[in-house]
């Protein structure tokens, strides 16, 4: 469930655009106004506001924002204002340019979006970067990561509910074999994870658990330092239980010393209109504390206010 809260009556896009323009005028910026508008509009409404703003002021709203706000606040507002496909394309491009084995963004985009959404990301990537997503991923990653990530971002998984139980059994067995042999980058393992439908994979993992006594992710933990294993585990979690996956990303971003603002921003901005409400519920259960309180404790100022707005506060 989305966490985004939109007021019952919403001003017209041109009125919103006008208000935003006012927020930029003169000295300083009215951040609270920015948050109160953009933080409470749906994707369609934000798109209409951007269009109205461009027509009225001959400039992209995002460009104006870039000149007025900065830091983590700017990043969350910019990412949030973009269309989900553009946002994912932007995040993917950043991940590719700053690639490290621990980076999960590509996996999240490939596995926690629907097939259609992933294709929309690929189209947005063409428009914005004049190259294909898969060509950039292929060139910037190597070895096992390339073997996993290129097929993941290129997949167009079937989205129906049909399950072939015989296949689930045989592929669970295959996974077990390769995992036992520590052949984590084996073609068959990659093939199964990167091409099967999500419904089929869930059935396969369920059967794995039934037949071998452990969830498949448990068996992929043999080396805690192995980044590739972590990537495989993240792939599986994004496919099977995205809410729990994102709860963990937030938890790790917030817990302990310091905060990983980029990770926090990414999850909040990309899930606010998808399932952030459920993620927040999972968070509360797991950490015995409401997510809002944790965010208040770990962030401040306009950045905090925007995150809370996206969590549904103060519409």
């Amino acid at each position, binding site marked *: 469930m989305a966490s985004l809260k939109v007021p019952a009556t919403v001003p017209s896009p041109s009125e919103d655009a006008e208000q935003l323009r006012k927020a930029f005028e003169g000295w300083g910026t009215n951040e609270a106004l920015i948050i109160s508008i953009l933080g409470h509009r749906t994707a369609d409404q934000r798109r209409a506001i951007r269009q109205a703003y461009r027509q009225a002021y001959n400039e992209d709203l995002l460009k104006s924002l870039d000149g007025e706000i900065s830091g983590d606040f700017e990043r969350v507002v910019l990412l949030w204002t973009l269309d989900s496909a553009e946002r994912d394309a932007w995040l993917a491009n950043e991940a590719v340019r700053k690639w490290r084995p621990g980076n999960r963004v590509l996996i999240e985009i490939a596995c926690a979006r629907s097939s259609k959404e992933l*294709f929309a990301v690929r189209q947005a990537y*063409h428009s914005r970067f004049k190259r*294909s*997503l898969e060509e950039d991923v292929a060139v910037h990653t190597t070895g096992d990561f390339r073997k996993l990530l290129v097929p993941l971002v290129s*997949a167009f*998984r*079937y989205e129906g509910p049909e399950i072939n139980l015989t296949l689930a059994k045989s592929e669970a067995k295959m996974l077990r074999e390769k995992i036992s042999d520590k052949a984590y980058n084996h073609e068959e393992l990659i093939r199964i994870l990167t091409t099967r439908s999500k419904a089929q994979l869930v059935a396969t993992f369920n059967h794995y658990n039934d037949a071998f006594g452990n969830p498949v992710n448990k068996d992929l933990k043999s080396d805690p330092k192995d980044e590739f294993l972590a990537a495989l585990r993240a792939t599986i979690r994004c496919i099977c239980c995205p809410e729990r996956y994102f709860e963990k990303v937030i938890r790790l971003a917030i817990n302990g010393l310091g905060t990983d603002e980029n990770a926090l921003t990414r999850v909040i901005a990309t899930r606010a209109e998808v399932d952030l409400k459920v993620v927040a519920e999972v968070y509360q259960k797991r950490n015995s504390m409401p997510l809002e309180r944790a965010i208040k404790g770990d962030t401040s100022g306009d950045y905090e206010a925007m995150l809370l707005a996206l969590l549904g506060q103060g519409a």
Partner: protein
Amino acid sequence: MDVPLAAEECEAITRAFSGLGGLGVDEEALVSALGKWRHQPEKRAQLRKSFAGFFTADGGFERFEDDYIHYLKIEFARFKNIMVLWAMHPWERDARWANDVLHKAHPFDIIVEIACTRSSEELLGARIAYHALFHRSLEEDVAYHVRENFSNLLVGLVSAYRYEGDSINEEMAKSEAKTLGTAIKSAGVRNLVENGEVIRILTTRSKPHLRVTFKYYREMYGKSIEEDLGDELCLQETVQCLDSPPKYFSKVMDETLKDGADKNTKDALTRVIVSRADVDMEEIKAAYHEQYGAQLEDVIAMKTLGNYRDALLSLVGQ
């Protein structure tokens, strides 16, 4: 009247039945034979006796060979097939052809053809149709059913969503031409199809970029990359399809119209004409003329029969 069958009449009807290696059947000639030979069963008996290979003497009568009944089914159906395919949505056509490769052992180059000669949007369309028709994804079936060493190449090709703009990085094209050259020189062509860099370049780069890359390859190594890829079927086809579909298709046309072509090669005639009629038929005809010195329409007219021939010629255009 009891006039025996002349040799020419025999040959004409044999030909009409696709008995001299043509494609399709001459429906008009067959129907007129029905009329001409009314009340003359002995004419038919003569035909059966003279129809070399189709009928064998067997216990007092000339029995129709099972193989040839099957053969006739195919030849009669050529017109039906081309009409059905013509009416079908291009996405569904491509999805069905791909599925036939995987489930009816049709040649793999059909998958290369579909993946590399369609536009990015058309290939996406084929994948959408594949979901709808077969309830699985195209890449999942290719990955599962292709167990040969070119499996990764094919999966990569069908999963691509290539950028289609003109912007090209010349330095990158040069460097990738070198990468390809090094790979080709050092590997046995056997293992080339499993080379990660070769697959990356061929399955992810845009077509304009690849054409420039191939151009640099020729400049650097004196030969076209096609030539250097020799007999490695899937790789050579991949490069041909990416570089110039009209040239590739004109080669396919030459194969399909040769005498002694096998069943799958013959089926290529329908497939290519139907799938390219609205796309680049003129360029294919030009390439064919340049490569083989003949007009494609003329060769088709010579080698095909009946309604099937007329359908082909209408699609090919005069």
